[in-house]
């Protein structure tokens, strides 16, 4: 089937439209969804197609997220729009103490089929309270699945799976990727949670990444190729469940791994991957595992400072070169 080139925004609205079409318990709850199809236009067309199932709320995040939980417990399949991922902080009890724990605490009686959809990341110069990548908080909370897609085809297939999933899924959509286009099949399809994707095969080093940094790693890989370094790029796509097999296969081959994410470095998901590679793949490593993340500061407003804080292609290239140079034979 011939693919079309569509944006991540379009992929999102298509995924939701298809799921709403076949399951009338799917609905979206959040602020400012109807007038403009979401504040990023990500739900364009949906208010017309499903007028009763895309619901504008007051600015009451606690009630929005808690409301999603209550609806999920009682037979609905809500998508909760978090507006900006940064605002998860205003509903952390609902997410961490309720959403993530209800099924387990109550001995597996309940299921919570909901998606917490949260646009994250920097790039629109929105400063400290509108630019964060907070995925590691949720990976650190047992009971939540965490999705961090990059290209439109993955966004669509993973969002559909997240909606169908019977457990709570935190779905981070990078804000700088809404307009990013890519090939997407016109036929409905699903991508299972927990399967990484090798976006570029390579022999010398494995770049393990996700979300927007996938594109930066691909660009870096191209530059590295010019210097004779053949980098493999793995897009994890979901952090929980994690496809460690894919990492293991690649690192066994390249014997060299580097993790790249936009979230700040300390306590970021890269630390978890590096630890697991150390524990499970020590014997095949030829160099220390490298990590790149944002510098450990809130996001500054001024573009010169933001660009310094967030990993750039040049940072990835430099770190990969250094790591490959350290490889023992």
């Amino acid at each position, binding site marked *: 089937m011939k693919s079309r080139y569509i944006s991540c925004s379009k992929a999102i609205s298509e995924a939701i439209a298809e799921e709403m079409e076949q399951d009338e318990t799917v609905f979206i709850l959040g602020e400012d969804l109807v007038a403009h199809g979401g504040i990023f236009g990500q739900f364009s067309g949906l208010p017309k197609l499903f007028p009763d199932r895309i619901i504008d709320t007051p600015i009451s995040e606690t009630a929005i997220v808690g409301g999603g939980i209550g609806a999920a417990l009682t037979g609905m399949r809500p998508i909760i729009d978090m507006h900006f991922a940064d605002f998860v902080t205003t509903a952390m009890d609902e997410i961490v103490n309720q959403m993530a724990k209800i099924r387990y605490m109550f001995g597996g009686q309940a299921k919570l089929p909901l998606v917490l959809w949260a646009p994250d990341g920097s790039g629109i110069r929105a400063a400290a309270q509108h630019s964060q990548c907070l995925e590691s908080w949720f990976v650190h909370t047992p009971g939540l699945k965490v999705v961090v897609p990059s290209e439109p085809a993955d966004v669509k297939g993973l969002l559909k799976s997240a909606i169908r999933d019977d457990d709570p899924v935190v779905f981070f959509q990078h804000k700088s990727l809404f307009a990013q286009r890519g090939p997407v099949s016109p036929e409905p399809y699903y991508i299972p949670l927990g399967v990484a994707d090798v976006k570029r095969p390579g022999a010398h080093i494995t770049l393990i990444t996700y979300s927007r940094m996938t594109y930066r790693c691909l660009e870096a890989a191209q530059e590295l190729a010019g210097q004779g370094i053949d980098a493999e790029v793995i897009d994890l796509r979901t952090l929980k469940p994690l496809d460690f097999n894919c990492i293991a296969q690649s690192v066994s081959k390249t014997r060299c791994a580097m993790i790249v994410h936009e979230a700040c470095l300390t306590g970021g998901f890269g630390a978890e991957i590096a630890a697991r590679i150390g524990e499970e793949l020590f014997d095949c490593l030829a160099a220390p595992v490298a990590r790149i993340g944002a510098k450990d500061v809130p996001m500054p*407003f001024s573009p010169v400072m933001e660009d310094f804080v967030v990993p750039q292609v040049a940072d990835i290239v430099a770190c990969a070169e250094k790591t490959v140079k350290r490889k023992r034979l």
Partner: protein
Amino acid sequence: MPTKTLLAQQAASLTDLSIYRHSGHMHAHTKPALHINARQKRAILKRMVLIRVFEEKAGDLFQQKLIPGFIHLSIGQEASTVGSCSALRPDDYIISTHRGHAHILAKGADPKYMYAELFGKAAGYCKGKGGSMHIADFSLGILGANGVVGGGFPIMTGAGLSIKLRKTDQVGMVFFGDGASNRGTFHEAANMAAVFKLPIVFVCENNYYASTSRADKMVSGPSIAARACAYGMPGHFVDGSNVLDVLGAVQEAVDHARSGNGPSLIETSTYRYRGHFEGDKQKYRTAEEIHAHKLHRDPIDRFEKLLLIEGTLTREDIDAVWEGVNARIDEAIRFGMEAPLPQPEDALKDLFVNL
């Protein structure tokens, strides 16, 4: 007596502005500030014009892509903001919102450091780390604009508690929108401020819209001012396009707080002329509605007419105010444009006091 709730009346007024031609509409608190003298009135006009010109030029600069990120302008809301801040002393505190330029200017901030901040320059109020949504000048009692709607309420509760513990007679004023009145933080802070009798004035600038959402669709109850009643504090609704009405109501609330009687809530009925942010498609309202508000309820226009009728100022005096402000703003923009960018590594500074 109209039987409709204030919120319903406001909603009706979006299409029927004749409501505003009758005085005393909407049970507004009408004890305008009558005691202020000509010099103070000129200062009030000047502040409103300063905000108007600052914001209009910020909008132009944004359109020319000279301001990164996004900006929320307060054009149309000047009377609400200036009336409120005119009741404060320099050592009083304010906390602002995402739509913060006006509050910060009204509390006395210098536009040149504000523009520098909007441009992301090192000379800005926050050294380029904050941008439009995060401007503060702690030396002027401005405890910060806030990018999180409703983020300011609990912080002001703490500032109020601190005033009480330090036994000063300062007052804290927290600005918020109609939309923010639905955050849980508002309700927690209002109750705590009331039980502790904290010297806080809650100023709700009800401009009818929270982003794309109309207040009458999102706020339950007769009005936002009426929510004060639930927390046992005075609540007043005031015509936010009339600066002296706002000042009268807010002055009463400030005096009440300063003399140890606890918090109050003032709801000002106002209107933003621009989109929620610059570039907003505004599909949620009509051009006619915006035009009608500009025509009939412009706060600066109304105040100028009053001053002319009273004979407080002449047309020439008013023109001189605009000229002076324009020159000051142009100079401030020049300062901001010419100021150097921060060094990239400056991003690593200011995180901790001693690290």
